[in-house]
Structures are given as C-alpha cells and as structure tokens.
C-alpha cells in the first residue's frame, strides 16, 4: 500500500501545475484549506480550472489573484460576511474569466459520478432554469467542448427521456479533478482521515480526484484513529500528501476547533470591491508574509484565542456576535 508523504505546505502545493483542475473540501466559509489557497497565490499558479460543489472566500481569493482560468460551481459568496464574491463578479462582468453556472445537485453529481467511476449521474434539479439554457453553455460557446481537454465534457448536460418511467431527466457529466485539497481536524501517520462535524461533500470530491492533499490540525499515531474506525472518513491510500498545519483553515471555521473569523472575511469583502483593493489586501496578507507561521504571528494570539471553540459545544461560547 502506498503511504502518503508528510511534507511542508510549499512542497505539497509545488506539485500542482498551471492548468490543473482543482476542487476543495469544505462548505462555503467552513473548513476550507486557506493556507493552501495563500500558497497557491504565492506560487503564482495560473489558468487553474476550478470545479466546486460551492465556492466561498477561498475561490474568490484565487480568482482575484488571477490564478483561475475556468470557474465552475453553484455559488460564490461569504455567507453573512459579504453579499457575493466580488472578485469573481468583477471578472465575470468584464468577461475576464470563463465560467459555468450549476445548481448544487449538478456539481455534486459531477463529482459523485467521478468518485464512482461513472460517466454521468442524472437529476431532476433545476429543470427549466437558465442554468440549463443552451445559450448559457459558456465553455461550449468558447469552443472548448471539442474533446481536446479531458476535463471538459462534449456537452454541458444532456436532456434524456429515461426508459423506466418515461420522464425527462438531466444527465450531468462526471468530473475528475487533478487535485483536491482538504483541511481536516485529524490525520493518522499512515493517512487515515477523520473529520469531526459535518462531512459536507468531502468524500465525493476527494474520491473523484486523482491526487489528494490533506492539511490537518494535527497528525496522530494511526493506532489512535483505528481504535474507533467508524469515526473515520477515508483510508490513507487515497491521500498523496499530508501537511500538518494548525489554524490552516483561518479565516474559515473549523468544527470543534475555531469559529470563522467573520471580521476578517468581511474586511476582505470590503477591500475586494476593486482589483486595486484586492491587490493591496493580497500584498498585506499573502505576499507580505513569507509563510503560514508569519501569517499567524500577524494575526496575533489574542485574535486566534477569541475564535477558539468550546469543545462541549463545538463552537465558541464567549465570542461577541450580535448587538446585545
């Protein structure tokens, strides 16, 4: 059995090539591999093809930094911390990025089909929406459905009259990203992965991907995780690289460990209303720090302490959240 390699963050991210198709574990502003996002930007990756069940602060950041050639997902925003992903919005409005809109189930189907070795998976979701309007097949209109790119299907989707109940159904093509990067609470020394809290669509996106980088709050002895195998999510042979990096999900949240840093995300959203604003923000928080350790030092212990979760609840019981 191939064992994953334990490496530093820059070495792991160094394996990713320009033009690769990427996806990420997590959900909107929860459990995103943010340290890896910063490192992708520092290493100036270009022309990445993102396919994501949903986006969030992380993919808007990659788009702002000019790393993304094609964005395919159902959503991009910052939850309550910012109305929409302004870097993505700006580039779409200016025609500076190729994008494909999907409904949630559509992208989930793409990656689930990919994880099961199937060419497609059907769904009834969003029939009659402009997501499925042939005029909005942007990759098709760009001439990219000619079979030359293995990550781009011949069709965005196919309407099909299925033979069992004679209903019309949408066939959604599989996606098999080159890489999935996932932040988790715990990984064993041999790569067994444990996620506490919601799994979101991690199992689907990880199994659909050819290569996996797992970034963990902590690496623990395998024996510890194997005492309770029903709590584990993945066997180690699915993992290529392990990076141990506490707080690597900041500013997104991590169940049982820390809250999302709402103020940080909200400041990011405000700064990124213009490209110049994003560039300045990136200069300060990405290029201005040499690695994740410096980033954490810049945030400071008090800020990080204020985000810490109460393990009895899985979230912070002391953080000031509202007006009362």
């Amino acid at each position, binding site marked *: 059995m191939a064992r994953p390699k334990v490496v530093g963050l820059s070495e792991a991210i160094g394996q990713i090539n320009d033009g690769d198709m990427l996806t990420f574990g997590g959900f909107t502003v929860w459990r995103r591999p943010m340290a890896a996002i910063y490192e992708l930007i520092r290493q100036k990756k270009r022309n990445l093809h993102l396919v994501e069940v949903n986006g969030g602060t992380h993919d808007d950041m990659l788009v702002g930094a000019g790393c993304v050639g094609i964005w395919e997902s159902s959503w991009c925003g910052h939850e309550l911390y910012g109305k929409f992903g302004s870097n993505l919005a700006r580039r779409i409005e200016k025609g500076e990025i190729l994008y494909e*809109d999907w409904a949630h189930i559509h992208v989930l189907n793409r990656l689930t089909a990919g994880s099961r070795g199937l060419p497609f998976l059907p769904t009834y979701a969003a029939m009659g929406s402009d997501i499925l309007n042939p005029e909005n097949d942007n990759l098709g209109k760009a001439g990219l459905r000619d079979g030359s790119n293995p990550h781009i299907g011949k069709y965005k989707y196919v309407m099909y009259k299925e033979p069992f109940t004679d*209903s019309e159904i949408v066939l959604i093509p599989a996606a098999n990203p080159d890489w999935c990067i996932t932040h988790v609470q715990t990984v064993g020394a041999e790569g067994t992965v444990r996620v506490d809290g919601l799994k979101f669509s991690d199992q689907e996106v990880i199994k659909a991907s050819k290569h996996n980088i797992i970034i963990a709050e902590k690496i623990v002895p395998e024996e510890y995780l194997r005492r309770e195998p029903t709590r584990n999510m993945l066997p180690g042979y699915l993992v290529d690289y392990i990076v141990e990096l506490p707080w690597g999900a900041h500013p997104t949240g991590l169940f049982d460990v820390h809250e999302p840093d709402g103020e940080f995300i909200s400041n990011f959203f405000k700064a990124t209303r213009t490209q110049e604003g994003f560039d300045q923000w990136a200069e300060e928080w990405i290029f201005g720090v040499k690695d994740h350790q410096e980033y954490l030092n810049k945030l400071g212990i008090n800020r990080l302490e204020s985000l810490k979760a109460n393990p009895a609840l899985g979230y912070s019981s002391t953080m000031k959240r509202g007006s009362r």
Partner: protein
Amino acid sequence: MDSKKGYAKPGEFKPMDLLACAAAREVKDGEIVFAGTGLPMLAIMVAQHTQAPTAVCIYESGSIDGRPIDLPTSVADARCSYQAAVADGLTDVFAQLQSGRVDLAYLGGAEVDLYGNVNCTFMGGPTGKRLTGSGGNSDIHSLAKRSVLIMPQFGQKRRFVERVSYITSPGWKIPHWPDKEWVPKKDVYGPAFNGGPAAVISDMGVYRFDENGEMYLDTYHPGFSAEQCRENCSFDLNISRCKGETLTPTYEELDLLYKVIDPEGIIMK
C-alpha cells in the same frame, strides 16, 4: 401588555418582526422544512416554538433536526448540528429533497416574477450585475413541495417583475429546454413534480399563486394598502383576491424572537 397570545399593535413591532412571523405561520406541525441563513432560520424556530413543535429542520450542508441553543449564522455553522439527529452531508439531504421528502422550503432572491421564478445569479441577465449564483436555491425551489420566498419589496419594484432577467430557480411556468417553449412546471417535471412556490412574503404583503401559477396579493401588512402593494410591482398585480391585513406578530412570537431565539441580537438587532 395584552396576553401573550394577543396581537401586537402597529408601532410595537418592526417590519422584520412581521416578516419572520408571517413566514413562521407557513409551517404546519410535523413538516420537513429546508431553511437557509438569516430570516428563514428565525421563521422555522418560531414555528417550532408555537404551532409546529414536531416540524423538522434540515440545513443543506447536511444537519438534520438540530436543536440549536444559540442562533446559527450560516447553514454549516456548528450551532446547526447541536443535538442534531444526523449531521452528515450534502448527498444525504439533497437526495431526500429529490425524492420528495421536503414539505416546505424557505428561500430568498434578488428578483421574483409573476410565476414565482427566482433570480439570484445575474441582475439584468448574463451581461448584468453578477450575484452569488444558485447555491441550493434552484434545487430546493424546483424539488420542494412548497417554497416560501422572503423578499424585500418596498421602494424596489424592480425586484417584483413580470419575467425575471435570469431564471436561477424555476417557478410555476418555465421554459422547456432546448426548445424554449414556455410550459407549466408539471409538464417539464413529469413524475418528479413535487409542487412549487406557495407564497412570497415581503416587507409589504403576503402573495400566493392561483390555479394558473400566477401571483396574487393575499394580505397586505399594516401600514400599507393593496394598491401600494401593486404599485411596488413592475407588473399588473392581481389584488382582487386580497383578504385584508396580514395578522401582526403576537406578543409571544416577539418574545421568542428577541429573548429566546436571538437574544444576542444577531439578526433581530
């Protein structure tokens, strides 16, 4: 103050309070409800504390029947999973949605039209202002038995239109792809048809849909008139079936909102 069950008088509540309470009243006891961040969370929680104690709330990130003791601020918030029956993931809950188990869903949007089509992708179509995109809005609106839209309206008639500029989420009348023919939703969905939009609740009134899937005014909120509701639509709203004023929040509901559900003042500032 009147008894707890009494209805608050104008001036004793804010527009947001009425929105949350009117939305809460759409839930029947025992229903399976999909809710999103913000007002929908308040609405399902008010309903669970009043007329619908056995209603179950599902969040699209995967938590089922959580019993939060602190108000969550997103559907993946750890607070949603507190004391949940199951906290798994998207495949589980979206599969339940597709198989017709979801009775009621709360959604929002930037634009809604006469047929309950919703836009949260582009204001003004694909060359217009970019918004977040569907997320689960499209899936949930297309596959829940009933959906309730919560929308701002007063002074924003561009949000209530005859045809949305981009259909993120399909209502009662929709195009059939690829031939573009406008047909009733049921004709497109066939055996997968579960229902469609049941109500739109704005800061001005409560709207429902008739036999033809067209929106009409059901009740207007205190302080507004049926005519004002029509003036704040970009199409000729049917006000002939209007039943009068929307019931105001009860004192019990207001107590729940400010003291039990959101004592921190996160949404109910």
